[in-house]
């Protein structure tokens, strides 16, 4: 167990290249706050203060995957770029531990980004907390962050194979913005997108979070929380399975040994 956290800590510092003041402040602090500001104002001027409130809650939730995907997807790419992947593959170390250790310290980052958005909304943008159920909010955020971590780890496999993370990252962020109910209600999504949204983390967590702001207690949003947890669990399991398949494929094709750049 101790070894797991050593791996989590050192791989976080070794692979997360945004871990310097400029990159960290811009990605964990400024970006979520600016997104929040923009959508709060869009809501206010295009519609009314109800819309602004709804958009802000969406953006508070959206802050979670923004930073989780950015951090975790790059970790997987740099594992290959740095060539450390070979020494992981030639070690008897538990692949489950390696895989999940890559997410551990990005989780608190996402909570921080989310909390800062919340604070900014509250202090600057008059986010309405009059009916907020704190416990429901806390549980929704933690669970959503866990599910998004699992999703990011799952996608990390593919960025490692591609050897590049920005394209997939941008596509995934677009997906979150458009399809998880951050701005556009799920019910108004065209075609089969509404069903697809059910399989993406944040969708159900966000429904629960909106419930929290409407004063619902945990029991009232239990189903949504459960669905969010299930989606996360699905990606966690799929993620580790794909991770092991990638390792097998790398042995056969010698595909990850060279730096992609």
């Amino acid at each position, binding site marked *: 167990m101790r070894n797991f956290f*050593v791996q989590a800590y050192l791989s976080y510092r070794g692979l997360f290249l945004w871990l310097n003041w400029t990159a960290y402040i811009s990605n964990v602090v400024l970006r979520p706050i600016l997104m929040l500001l923009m959508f709060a104002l869009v809501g206010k001027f295009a519609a009314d203060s109800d819309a602004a409130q709804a958009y802000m809650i969406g953006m508070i939730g959206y802050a979670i995957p923004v930073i989780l995907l950015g951090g975790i997807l790059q970790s997987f790419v740099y594992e290959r770029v740095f060539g450390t992947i070979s020494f992981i593959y030639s070690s008897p170390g538990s692949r489950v531990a390696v895989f999940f250790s890559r997410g551990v310290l990005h989780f608190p980052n996402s909570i921080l980004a989310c909390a800062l958005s919340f604070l900014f909304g509250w202090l600057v943008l008059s986010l309405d907390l009059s009916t907020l159920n704190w416990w429901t909010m806390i549980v929704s955020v933690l669970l959503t962050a866990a599910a998004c971590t699992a999703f990011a780890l799952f996608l990390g496999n593919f960025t490692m194979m591609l050897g590049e993370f920005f394209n997939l990252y941008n596509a995934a962020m677009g997906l979150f913005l458009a399809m998880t109910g951050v701005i556009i209600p799920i019910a108004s999504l065209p075609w089969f997108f509404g069903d697809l949204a059910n399989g993406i983390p944040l969708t159900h967590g966000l429904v629960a979070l909106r419930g929290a702001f409407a004063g619902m207690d945990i029991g009232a949003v239990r189903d949504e929380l459960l669905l969010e947890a299930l989606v996360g669990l699905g990606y966690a399991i799929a993620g580790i399975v794909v991770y092991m398949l990638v390792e097998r494929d790398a042995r056969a094709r010698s595909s990850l*040994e060279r730096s992609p750049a």
Partner: protein
Amino acid sequence: MTENNEYAVECEGLGRVYRSRSLLGQSRETVALQDLNLQIPKGTVFGVLGPNGAGKTTTIRILSTLLSATTGTARVLGYDVVKEGREVRKNIGIILGGDRGFYGRLTGKENLRYFAALNHIKPRDTDRIIDDSLAQAGLADQQKTLVEQYSRGMKQRLHVARGLLTDPGVVFMDEPTLGLDPLGAQELRQRIPALVGQGKTVLLTTHYMFEADSLCSRIAIINKGKLVALGTPAEIKRNFSSIGVIELTLNQTRPSLQEELTGLDGVKRATTSADGVYQKLTVHVVAGADLSDKIAEVVGKDHIENMVARDPTLEEAYLEIID
């Protein structure tokens, strides 16, 4: 486990073909290794020699489970590298060298701490083991420096430290002294017999013939993926090279001499080099042929200060075998 436990490494018909795709989608095949059969007894140093691209690194990657073979089987300490990969990985150390393979943002010590954790070294032993291996690798002073600031040789030292971190029974070393300074290289060469003394088996590749000659009890030479010579250094020199060497010290030479000598039946190669005030003439002849008299005649007896026949050095034998 197999019944036979005396071998650290066994390969049977081992082969590897790389498939790569060009931008236009045409697939290209490279036969990197072909039908390799080897048996390496426990507690020995085994050398693999061969030109660039011969398949040495490929062999090491297969044996350390990093790459799957396309044909044949391999066992390390009796464990099949494919079916019992995890057991193999528990018992090996690898030194691949090069600029990559570390977290540049972490210090040398932190890198070793990471790999100690990955390899399930007990937390309470970790500090002692890491400090020991940093000291042994001559990196004690740089342990707090970020690896991205390491020089090439310092990285190589860290590769060595990591490869030996888990006290593995079998160590694969791919050109381990490449990039080390003379002292560092010598220290590593002196460490290898000590490792073997502890019962470990070392498989190393190198382009330094003297290194192979002095360290290895047995050597394999591979060329274009095929085994072309196998045996003790002495056997390689005598049996595989099919040359003998005659060395002469001359007080005078002439430009046409080399050509005249290679014109002789049985002479394969003649080279001259300066040796103080004298000229050194090295003649490679077909093994077993007694050409001393003929050579002396061509050179001119009066010009010869000294003349000896000897076995080829490993380097001479190697060049002959690869040719």
